[in-house]
């Protein structure tokens, strides 16, 4: 009998001591936070908008994806660079115009829509928020959403001025709700631009004149707006928006330092890139190694290199004489993302918008309106700050070409060239120069893309098409 008491006592003790109850099934994450609690206070929304911006640094957007990103694509598909045989031959399919639904920049596509989702998500929660800085954050979110759609439509759709049928052709889906289940159809290029203008106009009216580095501000939004109008061929609007940009362009003596982050002159929107915060070696998109061990992916095309005359400070600022001594090769390396002083790790701030663009947008729009005198004055504003001396005084198409040339020189390796050629209805024509510093070496394989080619609109990835039954592929693919 005593034994049975022991047994029961023993059993009860262990059962009582170790048994848990149903409450253990309620688990809340340690590393994450319920969304509904994450967008309440003013500082929550500050964090939220930074979260939306941070998607810009993803590999496919302004990161250095080997498959190509906004950081590299518009120059890789252009005449500004030559494939370096010494390198890893990344992004070659873009450079050689061999992109297909099976090989395209899907990373960029997804990343741009991630920016859009995060902006929309914030806009959803901000409706119930009446606190400090609301208008500014709402403006930032809408500007980001517009910017991402603008980049998307530039890559996948036609640009209104590119051809007569552009506005009616399919652009991209313009997404304005944070709906995870959305399977949107593409809308016309005209409709996409209408939405972009709508968002940017709201943003320009509501955003702060100054925000922290890494965030958009009034000048940045107006520059984007002037670009949108320029792409649409609404010249006066482009001029008006550019006129709203008050930041001065970088003076000549600052030009070299902008690219190694020793000054920020003329920068309207850039993302600081510190080792302890973002720590992105974005420069690997162009090269790895130092000036004597360089392994370039792409080099400045010899044609472009020759266009920079010795009076032009940008020759020093944008192009780096470098070599791979082990292979006895010398290169015109791309300096814009090479590194800070003493560095070759490709870790520099991500520069996205500069005041110089407003000037060049304006000059181009003025020319198109026939205001050639004003256009020349505007253009000279930039040239005065780049050359020790230049001839100038162009008129007629020579002026147009001068504006276009200056745009190419100013924004080489800065995400514009492909779009510019595209909207001007011009072909891509590469000179048959090799990849070495003196133009010898191996040239890129496919040199030309006719202006009429369907390849000016990139294909959607098969994977994207499979997931969204409403997505229609571009013609030709």
């Amino acid at each position, binding site marked *: 009998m005593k034994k049975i008491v022991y047994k029961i006592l023993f059993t009860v003790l262990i059962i009582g001591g170790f048994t848990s109850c149903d409450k253990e099934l309620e688990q809340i994450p340690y590393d994450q936070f319920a*969304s509904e609690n994450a967008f309440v206070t003013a500082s929550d929304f500050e964090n939220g908008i930074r979260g939306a911006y941070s998607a810009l640094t993803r590999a496919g957007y302004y990161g250095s994806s080997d498959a190509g990103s906004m950081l590299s694509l518009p120059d890789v598909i252009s005449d500004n660079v030559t494939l370096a045989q010494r390198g*890893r031959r990344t992004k070659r399919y873009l450079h050689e115009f061999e992109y297909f639904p099976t090989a395209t920049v899907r990373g960029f596509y997804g990343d741009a829509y991630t920016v859009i989702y995060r902006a929309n998500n914030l806009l959803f929660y901000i409706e119930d928020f009446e606190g400090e800085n609301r208008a500014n954050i709402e403006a930032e979110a809408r500007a980001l959403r517009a910017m991402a759609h603008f980049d998307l439509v530039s890559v996948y759709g036609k640009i209104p001025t590119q051809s007569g049928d552009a506005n009616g052709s399919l652009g991209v889906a313009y997404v304005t709700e944070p709906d995870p289940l959305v399977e949107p159809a593409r809308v016309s290029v005209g409709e996409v631009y209408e939405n972009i203008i709508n968002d940017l106009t709201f943003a320009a009216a509501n955003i702060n004149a100054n925000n922290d580095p890494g965030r958009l501000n009034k000048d940045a939004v107006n520059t984007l707006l002037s670009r949108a109008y320029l792409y649409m061929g609404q010249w006066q609007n482009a001029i008006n928006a550019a006129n709203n940009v008050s930041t001065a362009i970088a003076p000549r003596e600052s030009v070299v330092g902008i690219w190694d982050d020793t000054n920020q002159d003329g920068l309207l929107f850039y993302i600081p890139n510190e080792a302890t915060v973002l720590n992105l070696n974005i420069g690997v998109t162009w090269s790895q190694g130092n000036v004597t061990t360089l392994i370039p992916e792409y080099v400045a095309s010899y044609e472009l290199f020759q266009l920079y005359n010795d009076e032009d400070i940008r020759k020093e600022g944008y192009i780096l004489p470098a070599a791979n001594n082990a292979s006895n090769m010398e290169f015109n390396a791309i300096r814009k993302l090479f590194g800070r002083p003493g560095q070759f790790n490709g870790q520099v701030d991500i520069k996205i918008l500069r005041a110089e663009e407003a000037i060049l947008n304006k000059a181009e729009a003025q020319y198109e309106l026939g205001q050639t005198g004003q256009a020349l004055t505007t253009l000279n504003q930039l040239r005065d700050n780049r050359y020790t001396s230049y001839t100038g005084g162009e008129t007629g198409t020579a002026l147009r070409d001068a504006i276009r040339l200056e745009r190419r020189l100013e924004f080489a390796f800065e995400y514009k060239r492909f779009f510019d050629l595209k909207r001007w209805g011009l072909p891509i024509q590469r000179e048959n120069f090799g990849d070495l510093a003196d133009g010898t070496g*191996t040239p890129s394989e496919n040199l030309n893309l006719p202006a009429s080619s369907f390849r000016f609109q990139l294909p959607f990835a098969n994977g994207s098409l499979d997931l969204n039954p409403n997505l229609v592929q571009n013609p030709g693919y």
Partner: protein
Amino acid sequence: MTTKFSGILTLLLAFIVQISFAQEKTISGTVTDDIDLPLPGVNIIVKGTNSGTQSDFDGNYSISAEVGQTLVFSYLGFTTQEVAITPSTNTVNLQLQPDAAELDAVVVTGYTRRNQTVQTSAVVAISAEEINQLTPTTSIDNLLQGKAAGVQVTAANGKPGQGAFVRIRGMGSLVAGASSPLYIVDGAPIREQDLASIANEDIENITILKDAAVTAQYGSRGANGVVVITTKSGNRNTEAKVRFSSRYGVISKTKDNFSMMDAEQKMQYEAELFALGVVAAGSRPGVTTAPGSPERQFLLDNANDWQDVLLKDGIVQSNNVSFSGGAEKVDYFFSVGHDRNTGIIDNINGFERLNTRLNLNFDAKEWLSVSANVGYSRSLSDEPRDRNNVQNPFRAMYIYNAYEPEFQLDENGNPELDANGDPIYNPTHQGFSIRGALLSEPENTITNVTLASVNTTVKFTDNFTYTFGTAINHVNYRRESYSKPGGILQNLIGDPDFPGLKTDNGAQRLDMTLSNRLNYSLNSESGHNLNVLGLFEYNFNENNFYRVTSRGFPSALLTTQINAAEVTIGSTNRNRLTLLSYGLFADYNFREKYLASASIRTDGSSNFGKGKEFGTFYSASVGWNIAKEDFFAVDAVNDFKIRASYGTVGNRNGIGRYAPQDLVAFGAYPGGSATIPANVGNPELQWETTETSNIGVELNMFNNRLRTVVDYFKRNTTDLLFTIPTADESGVGGIGGNLGEIENTGFEVSLQGDIIRKPSFTWTMGGNAGFMDNKIIELPDGEDIIPNAFNILYREGEALNQHYLLQYAGVDPNTGAPLYFGEDGGTYRFDDLPESESDNRVLTGKSSIPEVEGGFFTNFSYKGIGLRADFIFKAGNYINNFNRAAIETDGVSPNGNHHVGAFNYWQQPGDTNVLPSPIYRTEVQASDRFLEKGDFIRMRNIVLSYNFPSALLERSPLNSLRVYVQGQNLLTFTEFFGDPEVGISSGETIDFVNTVAPGEATLFSYPQTKSFQVGIDVSF
């Protein structure tokens, strides 16, 4: 009460008798089995005392006993016999009779241990003896291959210590980790990738539970089958037995069944390409140097075989010692072991493991017994990069050209030296010397695993017992990755102000199970045997991770973070998953003739939506052993059992631990925190359920010489858990959900026969095969699903894991251009393909899953000499051979090396059976051109062994001595280009845990190895 009384009376009488006639004498004899084979290791104890012994290798024994005492002879799988000692007893030669259909037929279904004879469901047990024959793999899962019908095993890759993908009866889920079986070691769940922490030498039994009648006992997690691993224990009343086993051998890469171009061939190929207009070949030495020129000769003189440079013949080594034994109330097993496999990459080490274990069972009181199984292991592994880029040595060994030297050479062909006098590695055309990087970019992992399981059993009555058990699996994992200052990577992307970059990250994983079990068992004399088990269990799983990265190291010799100038990343993470279970299981048999079992179990898991946490799973099974019926009088048939089972089992893997909740995470962005939407919650998430029906027949004939098991099963999995990818435009990636239904059906046969069974000569052959079929019955909204794989698509009504590709139609004999099939069935040049919504891709009907898979063996033994060979085979699966695509590029990548077959391109009209002309390199597009049949038969293992006869050992202190030579993967029959045993394609692209379609593609993961080893097993 009466029985108890009479028992006591008997004891009392025996005691009196003993006093009266106590007379000690030595009894000796030989124990044999039913066919006169000597039985070693039979336990012989003097009943009611502590003294006992074991028979030796030849079945001989000798023991002291007193007249009137009783000797008890027991051996697993045989009927225990008792022999009383009379004054005239001097010799007892005994023949034991098998008590079950199979000698090794003990199956461990986790909560219970039973005999195969009364089993009503499909289970396969692998005994210690068999494991012992196959030991040279460091991971248990590899060892399961070819051992059990319906168990599909795909070796992940050849990396030392790497495991395998085990799929029991097909894919029960659309997510990788969720298709793995549940592994239980002495009651503690263990992750598939941690299996390498268990020493083969410690394993007593591996039981694979295939159908729902038994897996339902694991309700929540048994949907994909259960592998129950039981470690060894000692025998009671025996003196300590010491066992020592050791082996040593060499391993090397399995030889390629193709040849790479040598320096001369590659340069010729480059010249040919350039002549055909491949501009990029213009910078290659085949174009820039003239044949016969001194420059060309220089390259030829310094040519390399990169496989020789990068690889080595590695060493495998294993040493294990164990002690086991017991007294009347206690038994123990203790072991310690060390294993090493250096792998085949020169410049780094492979895998090394130290393990130790103590298993103890003791009766604390008459009504209280305690058992404790505690094992610890520490594994070290050097990690090469496993990705499709320049940092992967297994890619480099194919892509580097033979004319590229290991070091940068001066004009005399001597290596150039750096400032420290060390030779400078040649970055090659890849811009990166993997040779140097293996030294300057080391990465290694250290995994400490502690497995502890403690059970306390209270015996209320003979029928009722209560057990409280705790089972703990604790993994302490650390990874270190160092980019040394001055190393290859630092010179490419380093920061001169902060030279060197180091990451330490790690995990503490705790899995704790507390279980309460109330057991009722009844074995009535009238033949009714009933066992009922009630279960209440709580499982708690917590992971803690940390990561620190810093930069700026003053010396490459300093590796700890304290030496760094600046921390760039520091983070910790934690997550939890809990499970609460109630179960009731019952087994019944009547004289082992009529068998039945049933179970019900309710599980609640924390990763499901509110109100959806609980799922209820149940099973029932029946069996009838016709051979035990009186009316069945066929002498040739020993057992003829028909069984059927049906049941449901759950699964909770495949989604995040907090998938039902809407969540954000926080990152960093200039200015402060950044809120990042992290999870779109699905509050409707619930259990995935698998329903299995099974019909089986077991037939043992001719004195159990021919043993056959046949099973047919049908498994339907519904409410599949899956992260459903959303449209790219949604910007969220995917949402966890329950979607659709898949069905696996299969037919399994295993056959084993003793062709010769004589005392000195046996020859056994056996084999098994599983024929599998599967189908996706339903997907949400009927829409196709693209999993995280290379070219796999899931579509309703179609088989799983099919490759979804454009179809290659060969080369146009007139032009040399590659042709492809359009959706309309016509053949086209790539640019002329008709517009098609699917881009002319089709579900090829070719899947990564084999249609049939299995193994067979042959085992001779003649007077102690043994020869055993084990084969595995697979057929009907297709592998996308990206390895071949990378070395057969038709001019797309002229810089890298190619295989010799690349010369066979179209040259003139009429050429057939050729590769496309490099002129059309832009038309070389992803297609099924490199999709190859993965069929193979491989001799996994061959062992020649010799057991020294006890006559020879008599004068030595040894009980047994076995020496052997062993070879692994020595023979392979396949038409596949390369090694057909493919699991992981590229470990850093899709890692082990995230692999949905094992074996879908090759992409330069660690290749398979072969080995030769010699070994010795000693016991005394």
